């Protein structure tokens, strides 16, 4: 069995003294793991950095085997953002969430394309945090944990939806949610179906990432007794620090 595909490297761990097992989110084969010969060597290490876009040729004797990857670099995503702590944290967070949430060997081309859009915008810090939140929302829907954000859980109203209930994963309108506002998650306008990303502020992006982070953690990480990855938590902290000190671009 053999295929050629492009994908983002999610994780690579050493295997034996010289090799590595790489996990790649491929465009049309989903999250796929394979052995990389010499993966700990000087030649392969720069390729096996989180977030890099690779051209991967996977070969296995039978479909069930771990198989091995032959890899070529398509785009050095990690190297491009190595010195920008916000972008690097975002990249690591997206990879960690994708690695934990995506089922192995199940194609999710929509999630892949959306991730590509997030990664392509990593040098635009005003846009990508909102894109990342939207991507996480789409990822949750793709793996069966979609949120209902187009009508109120209490009244059925379709307007003025500003909260999300952490219990039912449904939107709640301003009027119905007011008494419980401290227990509800805030829903920024751009996360509601079809609403534009234009003019989304950093505060709204933080709200959005807190919202999606809550559902990613409770739906994806809690069942296996884990918490959100460090990078994902630090991302929100870094964004909050940015609100306090907007001048400090590089931190």
């Amino acid at each position, binding site marked *: 069995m053999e295929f050629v595909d492009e994908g983002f490297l999610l*994780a690579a*761990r050493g295997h034996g*003294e010289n090799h590595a097992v790489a996990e790649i989110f491929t465009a049309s084969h989903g999250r796929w793991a394979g052995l990389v010969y010499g993966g700990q060597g000087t030649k392969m*290490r*720069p*390729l096996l*950095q*989180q*977030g*890099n876009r690779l051209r991967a040729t996977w070969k296995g004797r039978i479909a069930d085997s771990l198989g091995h990857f032959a890899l070529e*670099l398509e*785009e*050095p995503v*990690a*190297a*491009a953002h*190595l*010195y920008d*702590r916000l972008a*690097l*944290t975002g*990249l*690591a967070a997206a990879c*960690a969430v994708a690695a934990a949430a995506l089922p192995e060997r199940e194609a999710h081309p929509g999630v892949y394309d959306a991730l590509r859009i997030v990664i392509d915008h990593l040098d635009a810090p005003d846009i990508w945090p909102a894109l990342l939140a939207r991507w996480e929302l789409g990822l949750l829907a793709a793996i069966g944990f979609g949120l209902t954000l187009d009508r109120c859980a209490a009244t059925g109203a379709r307007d003025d939806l500003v909260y999300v209930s952490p219990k039912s994963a449904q939107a709640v309108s301003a009027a119905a949610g007011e008494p419980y506002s401290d227990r509800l998650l805030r829903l920024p306008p751009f996360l509601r179906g079809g609403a534009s990303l234009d003019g989304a502020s950093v505060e709204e992006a933080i709200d959005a990432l807190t919202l999606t982070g809550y559902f990613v953690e409770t739906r994806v990480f809690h069942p296996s007794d884990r918490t959100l*990855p*460090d*990078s994902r938590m630090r991302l929100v902290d870094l964004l909050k620090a940015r609100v306090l000190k907007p001048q400090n671009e590089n*931190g």
Partner: protein
Amino acid sequence: MASSNIGPELQRMIDLLAKLPGLGPRSAKRAALHLLNRRDPLMRPLAYAIAEAADKVQACATCGNLDSINPCAVCADPARDRSVICIVESVGDLWAMERAGAHRGTYHVLGGLLSPLDGVGPDDLKIGKLVARASEEGVTEVILALATTVDGQTTAHYVADQLLGKDVSITQLSQGVPVGGELDYLDEGTIAAAMRSRRPT
């Protein structure tokens, strides 16, 4: 591959040698044979050297370097510039910096990199001690000499965040084309990074 015809002492030695990096059962057997054929010139001195190193070599209480004295030779050297601390991942990296002879200050060995995949968090590294050292009188600069990998730079950013507010300047090794490097043979990531950190000439 049953090898019942080998004595237990020899077998034990081969098993232990096979645990060394780069050696497998076969090469461990070769090494054992080589040692046994050179008992006096090599085997006994080696055994003695290993036993002595195991007794005496320890991690420096200040910087984490390995040496038979504590504080280590680098920390004890009066000629060293105590105002500059260079942060490295491992003792191997410290040795590499010393080989280059480009740093005349002191070091701090972190003992690893932050790596969520391997379960290494901030508490597993010697970051708290570094913050205490950086707050000491007379320290003016902290140099982050960590790997240019995602884990290395994540650690560098984290350490820099921890040192925020201290009266020290935080610098980082530059990145670019290696000495003797030809562009044609460089990976795209290095070229991209070198391009971004280009300088007027």
